[in-house]
């Protein structure tokens, strides 16, 4: 019996160690490649432990750190504002939808649901954002167009519905109005759901490069991910084109392998820090939020 248990544990542990390795090793390779010298990579390929420690890739990136630091600032700023606003707005919306006595509830629910099935399409969205709302080349383009994500509204609504209605009634008896109920009862009881939604919102925004590509001309408003994406895209174009169109020879220095890796580390860094933090909160929240009465 005990032996069986031990065996099971060993198998599970081995399995999870294996899965962890699958995730961790590529990341370690990137870190190690960014710390290797270019010559070693050509000579020996990627190594788990760099043969010779070489910081020149990072030196190259931080020689002119202005654009990276600026992109960091911008990305952090809009990610935080966006996460705050979108979580707030979506929970407000979800709160109303979770009310039993809201008139036209099914209409509103359908109105939101409808956008999950049909979207405006890329070109109409572009026209709306640039020609009617004039959001292009402002920081608001990152924030305004995607404040409400229907999926998370419904997720929150379902969660809010799980809060016993009696609490609501008790609060009304005590003289609470809708805002008090929302702020003092619903939100504190829903921390796990809010943390989850906020986390996804934050990561989604942090990794957004498409918006920058499509709408931003002003170099000082470019997002961090786009900075990286741009380097990669340019490399791809150069490699594809440099054979067929010999004209490109004039153009470019391609950043070396190590610089690309270092770039990836620099860009991914904060998300790596933020994620465990949120996750901890998320797990804690699960127990805090359990129904009491």
């Amino acid at each position, binding site marked *: 019996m005990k032996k069986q248990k031990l065996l099971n544990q060993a198998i599970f542990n081995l399995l999870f160690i294996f899965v962890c390795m699958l995730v961790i090793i590529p990341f370690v390779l990137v870190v190690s490649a960014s710390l290797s010298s270019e010559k070693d990579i*050509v000579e020996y390929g990627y190594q788990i432990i760099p043969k010779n420690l070489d910081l020149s890739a990072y030196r190259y990136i931080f020689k002119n750190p202005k654009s990276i630091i600026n992109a960091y600032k911008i990305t952090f700023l809009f990610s935080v504002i966006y996460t705050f606003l979108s979580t707030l707005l979506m929970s407000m919306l979800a709160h109303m939808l979770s009310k039993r006595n809201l008139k036209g509830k099914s209409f509103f629910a359908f109105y939101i649901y409808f956008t999950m099935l049909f979207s405006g399409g890329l070109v109409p969205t572009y026209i709306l954002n640039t020609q009617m709302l004039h959001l292009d080349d402002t920081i*608001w383009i990152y924030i305004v167009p995607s404040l409400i994500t229907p999926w998370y509204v419904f997720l929150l609504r379902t969660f809010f519905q799980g809060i016993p209605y009696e609490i609501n009634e008790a609060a009304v008896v005590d003289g609470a109005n809708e805002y008090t109920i929302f702020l003092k009862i619903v939100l504190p009881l829903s921390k796990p759901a809010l943390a989850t939604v906020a986390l996804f919102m934050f990561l989604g925004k942090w990794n957004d490069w498409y918006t920058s*590509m*499509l709408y931003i001309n002003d170099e000082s408003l470019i997002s961090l991910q786009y900075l990286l994406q741009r380097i990669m895209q*340019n490399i791809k174009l150069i490699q594809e084109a440099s*054979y067929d169109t*010999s*004209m490109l020879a004039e153009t470019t220095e391609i950043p070396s392998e190590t610089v690309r890796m270092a770039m990836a580390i620099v860009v991914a860094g904060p998300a790596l820090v933020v994620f465990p933090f949120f996750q901890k909160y998320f797990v804690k929240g699960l127990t805090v939020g359990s129904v009491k009465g």
Partner: protein
Amino acid sequence: MKKMFLRIASFIMAGVICTGLAGCGGNSETSGGETEVPTLTWMIPGDKQEDIQSVLAEVNKITEAKIGAKLDIQFIDTGAFTERMTMNMAGGNEFDLCFTGYVNPYQQSVKRGGLLELDSYIEGSSLKDALPQYAFDAGKIGDSIYAIPNLQIMTECTGLGIRKDLAEKYNLDVSTIKSLEDIEPFLEQVKQNETGVYPFRTGKYGGGEKNDGVFRETLTSGTSAWIDENGEIQVVPVTELESFEYSPSLLRSWFEKGYIRSDVASVVDDTEDGNAGKFAVWRCAYKPGVEAEFNSTNSYEAIIIPISEPKMSNGSGVAAMTAIGRKSKNPDLAFKMIELVNTDVELYNLLCFGIEGKHYNLDETGKVVYIDGSGYAPKASWKFGNQFNALLLPGQSDDVWEVTKQFNEGAKKSSFLGFVFDVEPVRTEVAQIATVQGKYKSLSTGAEPLENYIDDYKADLKTAGVEKVCAELKSQLDAWYASK
């Protein structure tokens, strides 16, 4: 506490709405100015240039005096250019001039109706004399032209790069190398005597076609079209060509003899190896002056020789062009701007290199030496206009443009210049063929046994519907040819 939270939230929302409204207000004001000099916007792919304003100030002095217009250049990242321009055209955004070619593809842009037809502007303009006739021919779609090619090297020519030190060591006489297989003895010598060097680089470059004197063209993926000795148009799948097996079988035999690295099938990117000089021989594009350019930008020297005839094919001329946006409010001025950039040497070099003394210096032989960190160095004169007006860079010989011009003129011209294949009737098949091509592209490295490769390839292409595409292409070509 919680009320505070709500108040902040409503503040921010109010802020959002206000900025939105302010944006609307601000934009409508700008159009209210009096009779100012109009400013033309020009969209060009490339990195943003910090010091563009000082260059534009100089540029505008010239353009205002000569055509009464100012220029505003917007650099858009090369990787995003196609998507951004597609949006600009579809969204009806205004722009006067734009780059079209290898990004923001010419034929697509025309098809979407984003570019202005230029025939009536070209008639009687000075461009007609400034550019050779083949440039206009190359830019035609059907009977009309929608963009002016930026004159540069417009031919395709396969070349062979050979490491100079090795060629000298083994006394290779490059004048005897006329096609790919002629290099084989040299590869053997390299293999026998050199360590740490791969004799031949293949990878995505493949091996090239056998040179049999017929000008065949791939007008849509997987097909080959040419005009035979009776003046008949022939279209067949690429796999049916007699010369088709030439390159794969040569590469296969080289792979078996060990001239090609054994891990070639799994190597994704061998750029670094190339930079490090780990290949003795490689295939590349040949053009006049390419050797000098290569040697000035690499850490080792190479000999680069042509192994095919120069050809000007259906797509050669359209890699870099300048067009006028359909929504432009000043198409006349925009055309004059193109004319001016292509004919005014001073203006053109200002755009390409910036201001002398500030962004570049000329060395004692009159070559451009960039000043580091000056804030303006687009480093791509072919993006702006007629490259034959450009100043020279170190490594380019003094007569490089003259030789290039002759190279262009001497090249075999495609009989299909101006033809555009309308894929609409066979869209599905074309997409399927593209998938098949992608699959077998990775096999053309020599690492796979040839027998399976060729039969599978033929069969897959057939299943993808290559015969239907050939028939469609042939009928379109016949109709187009008859109308000429």
